[in-house]
């Protein structure tokens, strides 16, 4: 932590250099997953899709409403998920003040090669179930029993598809990069070119704006991470590939942490307040945060680390 602020880091950095921080993160996730009340993992995962359905992935078609803050064309998915992560992270930190959400950089050379990093893909760690690998989705008694989520573990089939025809994450990111900035700087890493491409989009809103361009990538990564396979004659989708269940998969939070970081990096280049003014007073339900409140991560009390080297002192 620095200046009382939470410092979010790359999960690969934690895995390679801060094993104790990663252990504490796993421990906090495991404890949160055991809690059955409003502080628990299932409650917070259930806010997104099933059961509570609060997530905002608009914009939706322009519509008339009796109240201006309910216009359907507001583009709120980035601020909404920023508030969502903030609340989730605070409940996580109630269990261990030292932990912070790490981001999964799916554009890094490591992820482009291995897909889901080991921190999330290892089924066990030290002979214990890895809480970053899967969570238990609990059914509840307030939806129709036959249609409710089964009481089962989350599933993930990253990069597996029934048709076997989907391109890799690398190919898909290159497609976005080339459509925005062409083939310039081809010798630079994909992650750097992606940031350059996204920062070159100056407008936040609109179908070709920053927000919706990033959301298209977001949608692809969700589908890629969930994947699909055939089991006993049945198509089975991974939970990250469905809005209803994605937040139950522990990698969800680090996927969105990466997206939030990309918005932050875009804001550094294009302005923290670069968002339509009429979005500002909109309350991001069910959180007590408006869009205006969610713009500045410094005011929200967290930072994204660039790098950190800790050297022991002397007394």
């Amino acid at each position, binding site marked *: 932590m620095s200046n009382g602020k939470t410092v979010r880091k790359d999960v690969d950095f934690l895995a390679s250099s801060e094993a104790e921080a990663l252990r504490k993160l796993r421990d906090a996730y495991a404890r949160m997953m055991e809690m059955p009340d409003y502080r628990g993992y299932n409650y917070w995962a259930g806010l997104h*899709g*099933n*059961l509570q*359905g*609060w*997530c*905002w992935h*608009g*914009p*939706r*078609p322009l*519509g008339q*409403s*009796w*109240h201006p803050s*309910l216009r*359907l064309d507001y583009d709120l998915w980035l601020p909404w998920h920023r508030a969502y992560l903030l609340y989730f992270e605070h409940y996580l930190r109630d269990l261990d003040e030292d932990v912070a959400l790490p981001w999964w950089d799916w554009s890094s050379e490591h992820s482009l090669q291995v897909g889901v990093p080991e921190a999330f893909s290892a089924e066990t760690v030290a002979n214990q179930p890895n809480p970053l690998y899967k969570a238990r989705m609990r059914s509840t008694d307030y*939806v*129709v029993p036959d*249609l*409710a*989520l089964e009481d089962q573990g989350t599933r993930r089939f990253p990069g597996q*598809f*029934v*048709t076997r*025809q*989907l*391109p890799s994450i690398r190919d*898909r990111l290159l*497609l976005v990069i080339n*459509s*925005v900035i062409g083939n310039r700087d081809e010798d630079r890493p994909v992650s750097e070119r992606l940031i350059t491409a996204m920062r070159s989009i100056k407008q936040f809103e609109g*179908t*070709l704006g920053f927000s*919706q361009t990033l959301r*298209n990538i*977001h*949608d*692809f990564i*969700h*589908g*890629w*991470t*969930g*994947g*699909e396979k*055939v089991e006993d*004659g*049945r*198509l*089975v*989708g*991974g939970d*990250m*590939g*469905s*809005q*209803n*269940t*994605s937040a139950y998969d522990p990698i969800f939070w680090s996927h969105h942490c990466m997206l939030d970081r990309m918005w932050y990096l875009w804001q550094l280049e294009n302005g923290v307040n670069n968002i339509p003014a009429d979005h500002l007073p909109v309350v991001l339900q069910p959180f007590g945060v408006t869009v205006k409140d969610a713009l500045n991560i410094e005011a929200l009390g967290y930072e994204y680390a660039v790098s950190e080297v800790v050297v022991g002192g002397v007394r």
Partner: protein
Amino acid sequence: MQANAYTSEPIGMGSALPSEDFAHAAIEFHGLDHSGGSFEGRVFLNNPDADEHTELTLENGYVGSFYIFGHGGCYGDVGHCEVSDTQRAYDPRQSHPLTPEVKAVRATEALRRAAAHGEDIKVTVVPVITSGIDQPESEDIGDLLKFDHLSIVSYR
């Protein structure tokens, strides 16, 4: 296993893009359904025979892709997934989670070339499932791609 593709009627480029003088152009898809599985919508120009095995090259008319992060089906009771066309006065709730959405694909070069040739174009969308479908393999998933209309938009 493959979901049904869509091909538009021929679109006269004179009406779609009256001038070649634009900085960016896009094909927008309005009223997209996202209640089912997640999928990639591969967009082709003048290639109505394109399918999920078609190579994604300019020569094949490939323009780009949009992605749908689907809800993965209904988990609720009767009426859970019905989106109302109207909103009651003084109802402060946000819009229904399944309110149809809008997606766009950058198509500047492909449309500029088509505009230069003055040819009619047909837009084909090939949906390719990525995830979120849970059903017997033998069941039809033909109607995964559903939307109200597309529009071709240019920007200076």
